[in-house]
Protein backbone atom coordinates (compact mmCIF):
# COMPACT_ATOMS: atom_id res chain seq x y z
CA UNK A 1 0.00 0.00 0.00
CA UNK A 2 1.36 3.41 -0.86
CA UNK A 3 1.27 6.08 1.82
CA UNK A 4 -1.01 9.09 1.38
CA UNK A 5 1.65 11.78 1.79
CA UNK A 6 -1.17 14.06 2.97
CA UNK A 7 -0.15 17.11 4.93
CA UNK A 8 0.06 16.19 8.62
CA UNK A 9 0.18 12.46 7.90
CA UNK A 10 1.37 10.00 10.57
CA UNK A 11 5.12 9.42 10.83
CA UNK A 12 6.32 6.99 8.14
CA UNK A 13 8.95 4.33 8.69
CA UNK A 14 11.32 5.57 5.96
CA UNK A 15 13.85 2.87 6.74
CA UNK A 16 13.92 3.45 10.49
CA UNK A 17 14.27 0.38 12.66
CA UNK A 18 12.45 -0.83 15.73
CA UNK A 19 12.63 1.30 18.87
CA UNK A 20 12.26 -1.27 21.65
CA UNK A 21 12.21 1.07 24.64
CA UNK A 22 8.98 2.41 26.13
CA UNK A 23 9.29 5.29 28.60
CA UNK A 24 7.41 5.04 31.88
CA UNK A 25 3.83 6.09 31.22
CA UNK A 26 4.16 6.30 27.42
CA UNK A 27 0.64 6.09 26.09
CA UNK A 28 -0.78 3.65 23.58
CA UNK A 29 -3.64 4.72 21.30
CA UNK A 30 -6.26 2.56 19.66
CA UNK A 31 -9.41 3.29 17.66
CA UNK A 32 -12.83 1.93 18.64
CA UNK A 33 -16.37 1.75 17.35
CA UNK A 34 -19.22 3.45 19.20
CA UNK A 35 -21.05 0.15 19.73
CA UNK A 36 -18.19 -1.12 21.88
CA UNK A 37 -18.66 1.64 24.43
CA UNK A 38 -21.91 1.06 26.25
CA UNK A 39 -23.27 1.52 29.74
CA UNK A 40 -20.39 3.87 30.55
CA UNK A 41 -17.77 1.23 29.89
CA UNK A 42 -15.60 -0.07 27.10
CA UNK A 43 -16.57 -3.64 26.26
CA UNK A 44 -13.92 -6.35 26.24
CA UNK A 45 -15.38 -7.32 22.85
CA UNK A 46 -13.39 -4.41 21.40
CA UNK A 47 -10.17 -6.41 21.76
CA UNK A 48 -9.00 -9.34 19.74
CA UNK A 49 -6.54 -11.88 21.00
CA UNK A 50 -3.61 -12.11 20.44
CA UNK A 51 -1.60 -9.14 19.22
CA UNK A 52 -3.84 -6.16 19.80
CA UNK A 53 -2.65 -3.23 17.70
CA UNK A 54 -1.93 0.25 19.03
CA UNK A 55 0.01 3.39 18.10
CA UNK A 56 2.68 4.43 20.56
CA UNK A 57 2.69 8.02 21.79
CA UNK A 58 6.38 8.60 21.09
CA UNK A 59 5.73 8.56 17.34
CA UNK A 60 2.02 9.29 17.09
CA UNK A 61 -0.70 11.77 17.87
CA UNK A 62 -3.94 10.23 19.20
CA UNK A 63 -5.80 11.08 15.98
CA UNK A 64 -3.18 9.31 13.86
CA UNK A 65 -4.87 5.97 14.59
CA UNK A 66 -7.85 7.24 12.57
CA UNK A 67 -5.76 8.38 9.62
CA UNK A 68 -6.01 6.18 6.50
CA UNK A 69 -2.22 5.65 6.61
CA UNK A 70 -2.69 3.78 9.92
CA UNK A 71 -5.95 2.09 8.83
CA UNK A 72 -4.71 0.39 5.66
CA UNK A 73 -6.36 3.11 3.60
CA UNK A 74 -9.77 3.07 5.29
CA UNK A 75 -11.45 6.33 6.29
CA UNK A 76 -12.46 5.88 9.92
CA UNK A 77 -12.46 9.48 11.10
CA UNK A 78 -15.79 9.10 12.89
CA UNK A 79 -14.46 6.31 15.11
CA UNK A 80 -13.12 7.12 18.56
CA UNK A 81 -9.68 6.86 20.14
CA UNK A 82 -8.76 5.10 23.37
CA UNK A 83 -5.58 5.42 25.38
CA UNK A 84 -3.77 3.50 28.11
CA UNK A 85 -0.29 3.44 29.57
CA UNK A 86 2.21 1.04 27.97
CA UNK A 87 3.76 0.47 31.39
CA UNK A 88 0.50 -0.17 33.24
CA UNK A 89 -0.78 -3.17 31.33
CA UNK A 90 -2.65 -5.92 33.21
CA UNK A 91 0.25 -8.30 33.66
CA UNK A 92 1.08 -10.95 34.74
CA UNK A 93 -2.02 -13.12 34.61
CA UNK A 94 -1.84 -16.59 36.15
CA UNK A 95 -3.18 -19.53 34.17
CA UNK A 96 -4.96 -22.52 35.64
CA UNK A 97 -2.01 -24.82 34.85
CA UNK A 98 0.49 -23.02 37.11
CA UNK A 99 1.85 -21.11 34.14
CA UNK A 100 2.04 -17.33 34.26
CA UNK A 101 1.39 -15.17 31.22
CA UNK A 102 3.07 -11.81 30.70
CA UNK A 103 1.91 -9.02 28.42
CA UNK A 104 4.08 -6.31 26.98
CA UNK A 105 4.11 -3.67 24.25
CA UNK A 106 6.32 -4.38 21.23
CA UNK A 107 7.09 -1.78 18.58
CA UNK A 108 6.21 -3.28 15.18
CA UNK A 109 6.50 -0.38 12.72
CA UNK A 110 4.59 -0.33 9.45
CA UNK A 111 5.74 1.54 6.35
CA UNK A 112 2.95 4.13 6.56
CA UNK A 113 2.49 3.99 10.34
CA UNK A 114 5.82 3.94 12.14
CA UNK A 115 4.15 4.11 15.58
CA UNK A 116 2.40 0.76 15.14
CA UNK A 117 2.75 -1.38 18.25
CA UNK A 118 1.29 -4.70 19.34
CA UNK A 119 0.72 -6.32 22.72
CA UNK A 120 2.44 -9.67 22.98
CA UNK A 121 1.54 -12.52 25.31
CA UNK A 122 4.49 -14.60 26.50
CA UNK A 123 5.04 -17.48 28.88
CA UNK A 124 8.57 -18.37 29.91
CA UNK A 125 9.88 -16.00 27.25
CA UNK A 126 7.97 -17.76 24.45
CA UNK A 127 5.21 -15.97 22.54
CA UNK A 128 1.83 -17.59 23.16
CA UNK A 129 -0.93 -16.93 20.64
CA UNK A 130 -3.74 -18.76 22.34
CA UNK A 131 -3.65 -19.29 26.09
CA UNK A 132 -6.76 -20.67 27.81
CA UNK A 133 -10.08 -18.79 27.50
CA UNK A 134 -9.72 -17.82 31.16
CA UNK A 135 -6.43 -16.00 30.57
CA UNK A 136 -7.68 -14.43 27.34
CA UNK A 137 -10.92 -13.13 28.80
CA UNK A 138 -9.39 -11.89 32.05
CA UNK A 139 -6.81 -9.97 30.04
CA UNK A 140 -9.45 -8.48 27.74
CA UNK A 141 -11.61 -7.39 30.68
CA UNK A 142 -8.72 -5.85 32.62
CA UNK A 143 -7.35 -4.14 29.51
CA UNK A 144 -10.76 -2.68 28.66
CA UNK A 145 -10.99 -1.30 32.20
CA UNK A 146 -7.63 0.47 31.87
CA UNK A 147 -8.48 2.17 28.59
CA UNK A 148 -9.78 5.72 28.63
CA UNK A 149 -11.62 7.53 25.88
CA UNK A 150 -9.36 10.16 24.31
CA UNK A 151 -11.59 11.01 21.35
CA UNK A 152 -15.24 10.02 21.52
CA UNK A 153 -16.61 7.88 18.70
CA UNK A 154 -19.55 9.17 16.70
CA UNK A 155 -20.04 5.98 14.66
Amino acid at each position, binding site marked *: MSCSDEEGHPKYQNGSGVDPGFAEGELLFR*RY*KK*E*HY*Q*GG*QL*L*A*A*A*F*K*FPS*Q*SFNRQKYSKPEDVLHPDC*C*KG*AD*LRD*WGVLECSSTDL*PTPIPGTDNRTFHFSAEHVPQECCYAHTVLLCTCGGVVVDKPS*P*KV*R*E*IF*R*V*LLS*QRMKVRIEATA
Partner: protein
Amino acid sequence: MPYVADHPRHLRRQMEEPTAYVQTDNYRPTATQALAVWVEKRSQSTSLRIKYGLMDAESELSRLSVLRSNWDSYGADAPSAQAIDAARIILNELAATLIRPSTVVASASGGVSIYFMHGNRTAYIENYNDGSQALVMYDQNGSTEVLELGIDLDRAEVGGRILRHLD
Protein backbone atom coordinates in the same frame (compact mmCIF):
# COMPACT_ATOMS: atom_id res chain seq x y z
CA MET B 1 -48.36 -12.70 52.97
CA PRO B 2 -45.93 -12.22 50.08
CA TYR B 3 -48.49 -11.17 47.48
CA VAL B 4 -50.43 -8.57 49.46
CA ALA B 5 -48.27 -5.61 48.53
CA ASP B 6 -48.86 -6.19 44.84
CA HIS B 7 -52.55 -6.93 44.96
CA PRO B 8 -55.09 -4.47 43.59
CA ARG B 9 -56.03 -1.94 46.27
CA HIS B 10 -59.62 -3.07 46.70
CA LEU B 11 -58.48 -6.62 47.11
CA ARG B 12 -55.74 -5.65 49.52
CA ARG B 13 -58.24 -3.68 51.67
CA GLN B 14 -60.57 -6.61 51.65
CA MET B 15 -57.83 -8.90 52.85
CA GLU B 16 -56.37 -6.53 55.42
CA GLU B 17 -59.64 -5.38 57.00
CA PRO B 18 -61.91 -8.35 57.36
CA THR B 19 -64.85 -7.75 59.70
CA ALA B 20 -66.77 -10.14 61.77
CA TYR B 21 -69.49 -10.03 59.10
CA VAL B 22 -67.32 -11.18 56.23
CA GLN B 23 -67.73 -14.78 55.39
CA THR B 24 -64.35 -15.88 54.18
CA ASP B 25 -65.79 -18.72 52.17
CA ASN B 26 -67.70 -16.15 50.13
CA TYR B 27 -64.90 -13.74 49.28
CA ARG B 28 -62.14 -16.30 48.87
CA PRO B 29 -63.21 -17.29 45.34
CA THR B 30 -63.31 -13.59 44.36
CA ALA B 31 -59.85 -12.99 45.76
CA THR B 32 -58.53 -16.08 44.03
CA GLN B 33 -60.00 -14.98 40.72
CA ALA B 34 -58.56 -11.49 41.07
CA LEU B 35 -55.18 -12.93 41.92
CA ALA B 36 -55.35 -15.22 38.90
CA VAL B 37 -56.16 -12.26 36.62
CA TRP B 38 -53.33 -10.23 38.12
CA VAL B 39 -50.85 -13.09 37.71
CA GLU B 40 -51.96 -13.63 34.12
CA LYS B 41 -51.59 -9.95 33.24
CA ARG B 42 -48.20 -9.81 34.86
CA SER B 43 -47.14 -12.91 32.98
CA GLN B 44 -48.30 -11.42 29.68
CA SER B 45 -46.40 -8.24 30.41
CA THR B 46 -43.22 -10.16 31.20
CA SER B 47 -43.65 -12.26 28.10
CA LEU B 48 -43.98 -9.17 25.93
CA ARG B 49 -40.85 -7.67 27.41
CA ILE B 50 -38.91 -10.87 26.83
CA LYS B 51 -40.14 -11.13 23.26
CA TYR B 52 -39.17 -7.54 22.64
CA GLY B 53 -35.71 -8.25 24.04
CA LEU B 54 -35.36 -11.28 21.82
CA MET B 55 -36.54 -9.38 18.77
CA ASP B 56 -33.83 -6.78 19.40
CA ALA B 57 -31.23 -9.49 19.85
CA GLU B 58 -32.45 -11.36 16.79
CA SER B 59 -32.16 -8.31 14.55
CA GLU B 60 -28.70 -7.67 15.95
CA LEU B 61 -27.63 -11.26 15.24
CA SER B 62 -28.90 -10.85 11.68
CA ARG B 63 -26.79 -7.73 11.30
CA LEU B 64 -23.71 -9.45 12.72
CA SER B 65 -24.17 -12.46 10.45
CA VAL B 66 -23.35 -10.38 7.37
CA LEU B 67 -20.25 -8.68 8.77
CA ARG B 68 -17.08 -9.23 6.81
CA SER B 69 -13.59 -9.95 8.06
CA ASN B 70 -11.71 -6.88 9.27
CA TRP B 71 -14.97 -5.25 10.41
CA ASP B 72 -13.01 -3.72 13.32
CA SER B 73 -10.26 -2.46 10.97
CA TYR B 74 -7.72 -4.45 13.01
CA GLY B 75 -8.18 -7.73 11.17
CA ALA B 76 -10.95 -9.31 13.27
CA ASP B 77 -12.61 -12.40 11.84
CA ALA B 78 -16.29 -12.11 10.97
CA PRO B 79 -18.66 -13.97 13.33
CA SER B 80 -19.04 -17.54 12.08
CA ALA B 81 -22.38 -19.26 11.51
CA GLN B 82 -21.50 -21.49 14.47
CA ALA B 83 -21.05 -18.50 16.76
CA ILE B 84 -24.30 -16.89 15.56
CA ASP B 85 -26.23 -20.14 16.10
CA ALA B 86 -24.71 -20.66 19.55
CA ALA B 87 -25.64 -17.11 20.52
CA ARG B 88 -29.21 -17.54 19.26
CA ILE B 89 -29.66 -20.80 21.20
CA ILE B 90 -28.33 -19.45 24.49
CA LEU B 91 -30.48 -16.32 24.16
CA ASN B 92 -33.57 -18.47 23.79
CA GLU B 93 -32.54 -20.57 26.76
CA LEU B 94 -32.02 -17.46 28.86
CA ALA B 95 -35.42 -16.10 27.82
CA ALA B 96 -36.92 -19.02 29.73
CA THR B 97 -35.36 -17.60 32.89
CA LEU B 98 -36.59 -14.10 31.97
CA ILE B 99 -33.13 -12.70 31.29
CA ARG B 100 -32.70 -10.30 28.40
CA PRO B 101 -29.37 -8.96 27.18
CA SER B 102 -28.21 -5.38 27.49
CA THR B 103 -26.47 -5.57 24.13
CA VAL B 104 -25.21 -8.03 21.52
CA VAL B 105 -22.03 -7.11 19.62
CA ALA B 106 -19.43 -8.67 17.38
CA SER B 107 -16.31 -9.71 19.24
CA ALA B 108 -12.93 -8.62 17.92
CA SER B 109 -11.66 -12.03 19.00
CA GLY B 110 -13.98 -13.57 16.42
CA GLY B 111 -17.51 -14.45 17.45
CA VAL B 112 -20.40 -12.81 19.24
CA SER B 113 -20.53 -11.26 22.71
CA ILE B 114 -23.83 -11.09 24.62
CA TYR B 115 -23.71 -8.54 27.43
CA PHE B 116 -25.76 -8.23 30.61
CA MET B 117 -25.19 -5.13 32.74
CA HIS B 118 -26.59 -3.99 36.04
CA GLY B 119 -25.07 -1.25 38.17
CA ASN B 120 -21.33 -1.77 38.37
CA ARG B 121 -21.55 -5.44 37.50
CA THR B 122 -21.29 -6.93 34.05
CA ALA B 123 -21.56 -10.43 32.62
CA TYR B 124 -21.08 -11.54 29.05
CA ILE B 125 -21.29 -14.76 27.13
CA GLU B 126 -18.52 -15.07 24.58
CA ASN B 127 -19.62 -17.20 21.64
CA TYR B 128 -16.40 -18.15 19.89
CA ASN B 129 -16.19 -18.85 16.19
CA ASP B 130 -15.44 -22.54 16.85
CA GLY B 131 -18.81 -22.88 18.62
CA SER B 132 -17.44 -22.99 22.17
CA GLN B 133 -18.74 -20.54 24.79
CA ALA B 134 -17.58 -18.91 28.01
CA LEU B 135 -19.42 -16.95 30.67
CA VAL B 136 -17.40 -13.98 31.96
CA MET B 137 -18.49 -12.05 35.05
CA TYR B 138 -16.75 -9.02 36.46
CA ASP B 139 -17.16 -5.84 38.48
CA GLN B 140 -15.64 -2.37 38.36
CA ASN B 141 -12.78 -3.44 40.61
CA GLY B 142 -11.60 -5.94 38.03
CA SER B 143 -12.67 -9.01 39.98
CA THR B 144 -13.25 -11.41 37.10
CA GLU B 145 -14.54 -14.98 36.85
CA VAL B 146 -14.46 -17.00 33.63
CA LEU B 147 -16.44 -20.22 33.28
CA GLU B 148 -16.28 -22.34 30.13
CA LEU B 149 -19.72 -23.68 29.25
CA GLY B 150 -19.90 -27.44 29.26
CA ILE B 151 -16.62 -27.65 31.20
CA ASP B 152 -16.86 -25.42 34.27
CA LEU B 153 -20.56 -24.73 34.07
CA ASP B 154 -23.59 -26.64 32.88
CA ARG B 155 -25.63 -24.72 30.30
CA ALA B 156 -28.72 -25.01 32.46
CA GLU B 157 -26.98 -23.05 35.22
CA VAL B 158 -25.98 -20.05 33.09
CA GLY B 159 -29.10 -17.98 33.77
CA GLY B 160 -28.89 -18.52 37.51
CA ARG B 161 -25.22 -17.57 37.60
CA ILE B 162 -25.86 -14.38 35.67
CA LEU B 163 -28.74 -13.40 37.92
CA ARG B 164 -26.71 -14.06 41.08
CA HIS B 165 -23.81 -12.03 39.74
CA LEU B 166 -25.94 -9.07 38.71
CA ASP B 167 -28.11 -9.11 41.84
